[in-house]
């Protein structure tokens, strides 16, 4: 058991697991919990819980607002978290806006664009974000609803048109399926698919977007938690990710935007802390990132996310990635052996991360999931907020297993056994 847990990647998973209190619990009739749903939300190590609690028991105050000592300390902790998270993704602290989740981050960009499209009262600097009929927004067919619906709505608000790259049979963005044009204003895509596990050809997508002067928006929800990501090197204009998928708290996420863009962009949410001057007749706004952080923010959650980033950095993201690839290998190798199982997504380790989705002939994903749950295995079943992608593959629902640093190969190997049991239970053979 210990040998199988200490991987060639050098991750001491047994030690890591000790940091995660929830992993010791049992489910259903006393089965040890096997948590294979980290793609939906990850679990939190003690270090993150402790950091948040220490903040709340010692330094809690409204940040950027008070002149007393607690307020100073709270502000320092909050900004220190921003700085460490920025380092983690290769960005400048001023390029990071704290949001409640990646969904808000993407909506922020979409709303800033429709706000820009109503030109009244705005300066010329926001013109580059304005959209109108004839303009195009490009996404892909594999997007999570969070990186699709906000763009559909932006199109509704501005009269722009949504277009998309389709997806190949093996779960890749089909670069031949669409030509960008001078009217393409935004190209938004997931770094790593939350269903297929496939990693997008970021460099090529960015190159094409730049060639037509389009802004790029990277949905980094499934990349930043699982692999080394340097947003500056990727050269995207915006990126969004959520704390809860990277061992951090829920209720906090990050929108990254290149300084020059954040400086030119009008605000989204308005209220306290994001203003420069307020009169009844009208207001002016603070520089970024404050301009985009209206109201009392998710203070302790930012501190918790800072601790999560410290935790991941101490392990090393290269090792996290190698560990997950090892798990994907175990999943693919063992599931491939089960009759009737079809992997949805790349059946290789190339340009791939840790989300393994599949269907089982003759047993609905929901029923497979129930049998797995009965054995203590927590997976996700359904369309995983990527309904168009499922429709593309002609299926309503898949079973998805997803991992993080605390997942062991032995746990992953139980998947195939569970699927066999489901087939038996439903009399398929």
């Amino acid at each position, binding site marked *: 058991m210990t040998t199988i847990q200490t991987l060639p990647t050098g991750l001491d998973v047994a030690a890591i697991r000790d940091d995660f209190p929830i992993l010791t619990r049992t489910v259903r009739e006393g089965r040890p919990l096997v948590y294979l749903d980290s793609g939906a939300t990850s679990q939190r190590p003690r270090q993150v819980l402790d950091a948040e609690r220490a903040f709340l028991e010692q330094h809690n105050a409204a940040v950027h607002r008070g002149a007393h000592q607690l307020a100073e300390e709270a502000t320092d902790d909050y900004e220190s978290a921003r700085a460490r998270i920025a380092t983690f993704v290769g960005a400048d602290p001023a390029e990071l806006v704290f949001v409640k989740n990646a969904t808000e981050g993407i909506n922020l960009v979409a709303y800033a664009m429709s706000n820009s499209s109503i030109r009244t009262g705005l300066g010329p600097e926001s013109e580059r974000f304005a959209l109108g009929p004839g303009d195009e927004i490009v996404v892909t067919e594999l997007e999570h609803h969070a990186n699709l619906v906000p763009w559909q709505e932006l199109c509704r608000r501005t009269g722009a048109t949504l277009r998309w790259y389709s997806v190949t049979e093996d779960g890749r963005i089909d670069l031949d399926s669409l030509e960008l044009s001078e009217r393409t204003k935004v190209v938004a895509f997931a770094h790593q698919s939350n269903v297929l596990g496939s990693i997008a050809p970021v460099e090529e997508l960015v190159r094409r977007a730049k060639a037509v002067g389009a802004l790029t928006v990277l949905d980094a929800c499934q990349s930043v938690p699982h692999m080394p990501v340097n947003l500056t090197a990727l050269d995207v204009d915006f990126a969004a990710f959520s704390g809860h998928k990277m061992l951090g708290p829920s209720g906090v996420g990050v929108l990254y935007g290149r300084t020059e863009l954040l400086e030119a962009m009008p605000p989204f949410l308005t209220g306290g802390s994001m203003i420069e001057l307020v009169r009844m007749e009208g207001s002016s706004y603070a520089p970024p990132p404050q301009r985009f952080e209206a109201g009392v923010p998710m203070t302790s959650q930012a501190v918790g996310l800072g601790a999560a980033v410290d935790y991941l950095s101490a392990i090393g993201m290269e090792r996290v990635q190698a560990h997950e690839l090892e798990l994907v290998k175990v999943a693919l190798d063992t599931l491939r052996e089960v009759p009737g199982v079809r992997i949805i997504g790349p059946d290789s380790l190339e340009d791939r991360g840790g989300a393994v989705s599949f269907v089982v002939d003759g047993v609905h994903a*929901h*029923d497979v999931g129930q049998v797995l749950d009965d054995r203590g295995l927590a997976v996700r*079943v359904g*369309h995983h907020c990527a309904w168009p992608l499922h429709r593309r593959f002609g299926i*309503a*629902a898949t079973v998805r297993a997803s991992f993080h640093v605390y997942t062991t190969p032995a746990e992953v190997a139980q998947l195939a056994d569970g699927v066999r049991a489901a087939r038996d*239970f*439903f009399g398929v053979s």
Partner: protein
Amino acid sequence: MKLEQMYQEIILDHYRSPHGAGLREPFDAETHHINPTCGDEVTLRVKLDDSGEKVEGVSHETLGCSISQASASVLTDLVVGQTVEEAFRIMASFQEMAQGRGKVVPDEDVLGDGVAFAGVAKYPARVKCALLGWMAFKDAVARVHDAAAQDEATSKGAQA
């Protein structure tokens, strides 16, 4: 083992050979319902008698899990031949049980094979599966009645 509590033999039987499966003619209304969490779909047709007070036939095409398929099958058994009023009473009873978190003791006289779904009630995420067909049925009957009411209004209008 808990699994058998949810997937009682009756449910598995209905799942393997569902009653009312396959869309049939004639029908008065057709509805299409979806479970947004998992993408499961049911298309359901209902035929009432001329008075609109009795359920003469139900047929459905269910793309979904064993629970949603078995439930649509049991629905067919329970409502066909009943008055609409009686069918809605059965539905209310089924719904109460399904949403009862396993704490509602179902009445076999009312629910027949439907009592087998008592185990499903302990799994909140599956309750929607068990109710999918029923919601489509309710909606379909409402449509027949709405259409009838409209017809009447039109013919009254014509008379006036």
